[in-house]
């Protein structure tokens, strides 16, 4: 197939570069040394993770460069499974967000997180569907991609490394991510 044949070298380099880029904007959320999940360095010096990852007002974050910082939970919404954390100035560029609704069914996506404590693990796949699971409920980005405990709160990114969602949970072998548009609205409203 020409797509793979023509691009196999550059394609593989792209995936390695993509993984490296995403690791820099992914943090480990911990409490008293225990791994709770992952988080994304969001623009304007904030961190976004899942509500189910942070159940206390304060947690620790381990950055990709090994530094640890304290973070304060400033907003938490269990309906959308999102939490916004305040962190001190760390001097690390934040993630780039994708324009809402730019991923399509079939688009390549990558997730980085700390599944089962494995630091900065990459998984790749494609968007399987965008919409609710079953007839009702909220819209998810459903990705044909493997997630495990520890991925929660980490980034789901497109082929250019732009954030398209925040990984929330697995449904069977599907990964469910909160779409970036929902995350952006949550962050906007949390700021007031």
């Amino acid at each position, binding site marked *: 197939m*020409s*797509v793979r044949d023509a691009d196999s070298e550059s394609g593989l380099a792209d995936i390695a570069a993509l993984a490296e880029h995403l690791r820099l904007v992914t943090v480990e959320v911990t409490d008293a040394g225990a791994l709770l999940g992952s988080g994304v360095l969001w623009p304007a010096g904030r961190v976004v993770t899942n509500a189910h990852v942070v159940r206390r007002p304060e947690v620790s974050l381990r950055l990709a460069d090994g530094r640890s910082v304290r973070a304060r939970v400033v907003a938490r919404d269990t309906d959308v499974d999102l939490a916004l954390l305040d962190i001190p100035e760390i001097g690390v560029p934040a993630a780039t967000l994708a324009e809402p609704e730019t991923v399509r069914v079939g688009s390549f996506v990558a997730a980085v997180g700390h599944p089962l404590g494995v630091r900065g693990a990459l998984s790749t796949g494609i968007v399987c569907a965008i919409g609710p699971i079953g007839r009702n409920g909220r819209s998810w980005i459903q990705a044909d991609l493997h997630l495990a405990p520890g991925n929660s709160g980490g980034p789901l990114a497109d*082929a250019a490394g732009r954030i398209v969602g925040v990984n929330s949970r697995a449904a069977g072998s599907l990964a469910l991510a909160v779409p970036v548009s929902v995350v952006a609205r949550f962050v906007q409203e949390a700021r007031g």
Partner: protein
Amino acid sequence: MNGLQGLSNDLAAAVERAGRAVFSVAGRARLGSTGVHWRPGLVVTADHTVHVDEEVTITGPDGRALTARVAGRDPTIDVAVLKVDAPGVPVAEVADSSAVRVGHIVLALGAGPRASWGVVSSLGEGRMLHLDLTLYPGFSGGPLVDAQGRVVGINTSGASRHWQLAIPAAAVNRVVDELQRRGRIPRAYLGVSTQPVRLPELVRQRLNLDQQTAVIVVEVQSGSPAAAAGVTIGDVIVSLGTTRITDPTDLKSALRPDRVGESLTASVLRGGEPKDLQVTVGERPRRG
């Protein structure tokens, strides 16, 4: 744009292109399945997902619900063909499945469209494609699509618990050709019941057989093609035509609908001695 973004765009475009010819099929009580507009007015799906015998509701990519009729089935390869009047729904672009190689990137589509991806992991016995990808609930009967959005097969999770399989487009074409030629899909049969049997090492060596197993005839229906050919209980069928028969499934998949009326050589062992019998594949009488 980097190579990965190009691949991503190609995959999304392939889903969009192939998805235009994809139906959701409500052929069983709980979980629906997927179908492909294969030729004008003919939708192909997985036979094991169609529990009804006559009318079935299918929903097009535009959301329109249509009534389709079961026009024929070939359970030997898990294909059912539905007849429907579906103006405005494009027909899938079907590719030459013999060009599919191990390692090719493929997409599986479910109605919606939904999609998963992976590679062809092996070209299996019985002409099936083995896939390294996830067939999500409802994906059975949907198209296996190459990176250009062309249909190379029909996915089925029904044939095996251990493998994700696709029926190659060429095999589907054969079934659809039969349907269009005869107006129905005949069911080929010999009229025997068989069980797997291990071939003794001495017999294998003496007759230069490289297969470990074959099937033993435990019943011959009277008046059947097998009876007419002189097959008797206790015969061990080693091959039929050019197909090695190592278990009853091999025999079943050798009896394709387009084989009806064909004369094949059945190589059997009778009392440990090889014997060739000419058998004319018959059409199983229809029930009711």
